């Protein structure tokens, strides 16, 4: 404590220090990110290298075992097949078919799930939907895939219903939780400052719900992917899952793996690049909160 009278209140940190401090923090973050990505990528390279290496001729004594190149083609062969299929133009078409199914099915599921989440704020509707939500959350997706495949065959409604049944509850649970946690103190604050209801919804309710919706979107989407491909394996005439079935039936392991790899990389791209970019862009304030 000082006993002298200050002429101006103290400033927290001199601005000059502040800049270098931030610079240092940013550098540290970048270094940390680089090393994380390095190890991540290294894991892929390691697996691929071992896989390729095990199939070399020097291990020919293993022929007849599962490591036979005829049964399990190496990564280089799979990559070659990938470009072959890509050149034929079947890949974009298959992805388009699958993605359209996901977009329609999961779009509907998201709307329905959010609506039920809102309705469940009332005691009666909560009682009405509670068990349905629980069942959807806990039953394996395969059940719905099989049921819809039996009932709908290869009609487009099948996958959509399978997606809705497996994912709506994830959205419902998140929306419902978000609504329960609405920040009453902020809404009261806005009310006392006579901020319009429209502006309160737009600047308080929606930003508050956004992370909850995003979580529902993210988890729901990752399940919608798997379910869609599964429905295609069972009961479709186009799409990634269908192509997998065809290669399996034709016993073309190299093509089968190509489709799996393509599927895997696309999912990884969506998850790690697209969704994470959205998160960084729109939820920057959350990093600020966790930083302190």
């Amino acid at each position, binding site marked *: *404590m*000082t006993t002298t009278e*200050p002429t101006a*209140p*103290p*400033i*927290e940190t001199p*601005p000059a220090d502040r800049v270098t401090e931030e610079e240092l923090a940013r550098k540290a973050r970048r270094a940390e990110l680089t090393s994380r990505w390095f190890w991540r990528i290294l894991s892929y390279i390691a697996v691929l290298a071992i896989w390729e290496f095990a199939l070399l001729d020097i291990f020919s004594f293993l022929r007849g075992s599962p490591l036979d190149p005829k049964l399990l083609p190496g990564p280089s062969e799979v990559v070659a097949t990938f470009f072959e299929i890509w050149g034929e133009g079947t890949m974009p078409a298959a992805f388009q078919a699958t993605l359209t199914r996901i977009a329609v099915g999961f779009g509907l599921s998201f709307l329905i799930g959010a609506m039920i989440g809102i309705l469940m704020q009332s005691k009666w509707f909560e009682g009405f939907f509670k068990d349905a939500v629980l069942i959807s959350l806990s039953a394996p997706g395969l059940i719905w895939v099989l049921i819809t495949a039996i009932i709908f065959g290869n009609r487009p409604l099948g996958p959509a219903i399978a997606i809705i049944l497996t994912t709506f509850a994830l959205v419902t649970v998140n929306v419902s939780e978000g609504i329960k946690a609405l920040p009453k*103190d*902020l809404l*009261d*604050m*806005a*009310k*006392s*400052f*006579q*901020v319009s209801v429209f*502006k309160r919804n737009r*600047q*308080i309710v929606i*930003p*508050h719900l956004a992370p909850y919706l995003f979580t529902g979107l993210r988890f729901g989407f990752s399940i919608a992917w798997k379910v869609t491909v599964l429905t295609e394996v069972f009961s479709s005439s186009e799409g990634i899952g269908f192509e997998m079935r065809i290669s399996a039936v034709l016993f073309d392991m190299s093509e089968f793996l190509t489709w799996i790899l393509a599927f895997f990389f696309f999912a990884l791209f969506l998850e790690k690049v697209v969704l994470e970019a959205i998160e960084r862009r729109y939820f*920057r*304030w*959350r990093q*600020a*909160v*966790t*930083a*302190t």
Partner: protein
Amino acid sequence: MAEIRIKNLHKEFGVGEDKVVALEDVNLDITGHSFVSIVGPSGCGKSTLLNILTGIETPTSGTVAITSDGHVAAPGYVFQAARLLPWRTVTDNLMFVQEDRSEDTRKRCQRYLEMVQLGDKGTKFPGELSGGMQQRVGIARAFSIEPDVLFMDEPFSHLDAITARALRRELHHMWDETKKMVVFVTHDVGEAVELSNRILVFAKGGRLEDDIQIDLPFPRDPADDEVAVAKAHVLRKFEELDLLAS
């Protein structure tokens, strides 16, 4: 000139066994260029009274009216906690409560941020500021709409002594200059005596127990005899209430 008229105000929360009486039969007029402090023990309904006056809560019975020159007065409210939107920057938090987004308004917001020594923090998110800094943003927000009546609920209790003193002076200066009305809740009798020309003492159960005028010139020095006497007087009131309660 702003006017607050409170008639037979009664407020309870909950029903049956959970019923809590927060305010009981409060009658009160505050007019003109007053600086009114509300003091009283924790839970005596101080925040509830401000919430009713600012339209957040509705009375169980009775009426309140806040007018300024015949029209409905615009209140500014500084809360016990900062209540900032975590997803908006400091500047946008101030802009959120403005009526328009004009350049003049923006400049005014910046001016009040500078008043609370946060002129360079406009682009930060609240999560990047310390608790005391967040509280100061809340103060700047209430000032920035240049309200007819400024309601403050223990605004300085989370701040360090030096910052609190600087802001107390700034507040008083503004009150003097703009001739606005300030309604100020505090636990600190010294603070109340230093700042206000009227002190309302509330007791447990939400009853208005005492209404004390303090007609000493500003600025008031706590070391000054008359200020010390006034403070002792209010403290004695407190003790009497305590005795009554036990």
